[in-house]
């Protein structure tokens, strides 16, 4: 019974209007296994169905088809309070007319717990969150960070199997966000509960998640741990979504030139062409003359050539953003732009010619049509 694993099977959500006619399918038959104690992040652009999915797990939204199980119980038709979940909302959703104490105690009071128990539980939790000095205040008298901590406390007090977070940090300022981020991570390692965390911010996803589920248009694009997502994205969408600045993507095809294989950008003039070496060459030999997308991350474009794994590309500097120990350099190359993250404190001038070296070990090729990675 103490199992906080969440099994989502063929889950579909179609919104309907007042008359019950379908209007929009927000979640399209997704499958997701979340282990007990796992910190799972749902990430994706706005409108991709993250909130909808989370709300179905919470029981706030009716399930159109498919099943959700928490532990070994199918919870499709269970009231939220019986599911062993607690939710932290994006807008805090505190009860404005109640004191902080009552905000946190409300659920326990409804469950008819003993007064001593409530005092004790709320007292302990509020202390751990640094809220014990403001229990008699109303939410209005608290700062944004404190309010979100109250919301967190209210969830903890419920002692749930599964915590659900819907963009809990997006209303906080940047500094507070970083602080709360580590606080939630610490909470996870202390409590060890399953947590499902929705965000549109890939940095939050990468730093917090044990595993990350990337969604787009109501479908799951890939589920993996952060490093795998970064190193081995399964498709173009994940490749472009994870990482900041995003991966450079060039359209073109593999051609044979002078006995070797090159990736040639599709362009009228000035097309970039990159000789393929190493494992990419082996891959490319199977894709001769096929349209592909060539992907390389900004951090895999360097200024100096190394041990034969790097190939040069001529370009000129468009804009450079020095950031101290490294610079983001926007390059004009071929028909479009490349972004390079270059280490060192060098300064770059606009229009300055620059040869960058592509680390071919890190290059990914994607099928133009299916947008899947080619392995």
């Amino acid at each position: 019974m103490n199992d906080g694993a969440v099994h989502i099977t063929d889950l579909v959500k179609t919104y309907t209007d007042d008359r019950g006619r379908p209007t929009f399918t927000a979640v399209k038959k997704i499958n997701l296994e979340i282990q007990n104690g796992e910190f799972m992040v749902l990430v994706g652009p706005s409108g991709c169905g993250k909130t909808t999915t989370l709300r179905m797990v919470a029981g706030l939204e009716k399930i159109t088809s498919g099943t959700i199980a928490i532990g070994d119980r199918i919870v499709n038709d269970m009231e939220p309070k019986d599911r062993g979940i607690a939710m932290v909302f994006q807008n805090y959703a505190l009860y404005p007319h109640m004191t902080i104490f009552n905000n946190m105690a409300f659920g326990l009071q409804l469950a008819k717990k003993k007064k001593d128990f409530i005092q004790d539980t709320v007292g302990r939790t509020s202390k751990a969150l640094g809220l014990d000095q403001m229990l008699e205040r109303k939410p209005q008298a608290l700062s944004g960070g404190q309010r979100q901590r109250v919301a967190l406390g209210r969830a903890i007090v419920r002692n749930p199997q599964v915590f659900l977070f819907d963009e809990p940090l997006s209303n906080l300022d940047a500094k507070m966000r970083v602080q709360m981020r580590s606080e939630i991570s610490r909470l996870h390692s202390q409590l060890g509960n399953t947590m499902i965390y929705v965000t549109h911010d890939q940095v939050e996803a990468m730093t917090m998640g044990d595993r990350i589920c990337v969604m787009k248009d109501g479908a799951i694009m890939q589920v993996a741990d952060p490093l795998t997502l970064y190193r081995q994205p399964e498709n173009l969408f994940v490749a472009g979504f994870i990482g900041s600045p995003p991966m450079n993507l060039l359209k073109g095809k593999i051609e044979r030139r002078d006995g070797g294989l090159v990736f040639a950008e599709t362009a009228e003039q000035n097309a970039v062409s990159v000789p393929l070496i190493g494992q990419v060459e082996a891959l490319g030999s199977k894709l001769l003359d096929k349209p592909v997308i060539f992907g390389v991350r900004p951090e895999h474009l360097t200024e100096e050539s190394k041990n034969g794994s790097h190939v040069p590309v001529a370009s000129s500097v468009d804009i450079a953003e020095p950031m101290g120990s490294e610079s983001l350099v926007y390059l004009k190359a071929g028909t479009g732009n490349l972004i390079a993250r270059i280490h060192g404190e060098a300064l770059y001038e606009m229009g300055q010619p620059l040869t960058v070296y592509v680390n071919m070990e890190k290059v990914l090729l994607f099928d133009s049509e299916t947008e899947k990675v080619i392995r």
Partner: protein
Amino acid sequence: MSPQRKQFLRQLTAHLVLIIVCALVLVPLVMVILASFRKGNFPPNALWLSLDQWTLDHWKYVLGIPYREVMNATSGETRLIQAQTPPLHWFFNSILVASLASLGIILLAGTAAYAFARLRFRFRGPTLTGLLILQMFPQVLALTAYYRILSYIGQRVPWIGLNTFPGLILIYLSGISINIWMIKGYFDTISISMEESARIDGASRFQTFFRILLPMSAPIFAVVFILSFIGMISEYPTASVVLQDSAVRTLAVGAYSLVGEQEKLWGHFSALAVLSGVPITIMFLLCQRFIIGGLTSGGAKE
């Protein structure tokens, strides 16, 4: 023109306008108050009473206190006067009817507004529009129908028939669509996430409504209550048709009966009119402390 002079003229104009507006409000009030203290039954028409014109007779009549009235000025003959049904009685009738009906309206309109704002059901939109359209026909148009209906009910269930307060309240409760709209509009501005949060915390729909949504909506309920209350204290057409026995009249109906065809007791009428302002003022002061902003602030960030 110097800037000071310009400034002075501007302020002068502003003050003049304000004084005129104040006078428009205050002059009739003063006239009515004076008429209620004036010997004889004169319509409110004076802004000044000379010392020998003052009397408390009208107020005694209204409050049901016996007093002597001079019948014949030459012989000095007097008679003792006491109202059979003291108008004060109508005053309490009005307060009773207006309070109960306003409470009923809040309860009915509040729950209906909840349904329209928070539940999804077939014909929700059309029903809502329908309510508004229905409300456009003045209730007065249906007076004869109300009369027939109440007399019909009264023959079977006497305590809801004509000349009963429940009968009148029932009619008042039928005119609440504008209130439903107002309250629904307010609910729509309150983020639903607090109620969802309560649901996760284990609150039933009723608990959510009464313990979460209602306290946050106190201002709109105070406004609806006070508006209904004022409306019903001064409502005449319906009350005059339903309540015809002197004992059950409301203030408005009773006051009107004082200035009937044969006899126009303007002094009594004025005293009663001033008196009718009292419950409205008290109710307003009571409700005012609920009509404050910021009740929902701190709960949800939009």
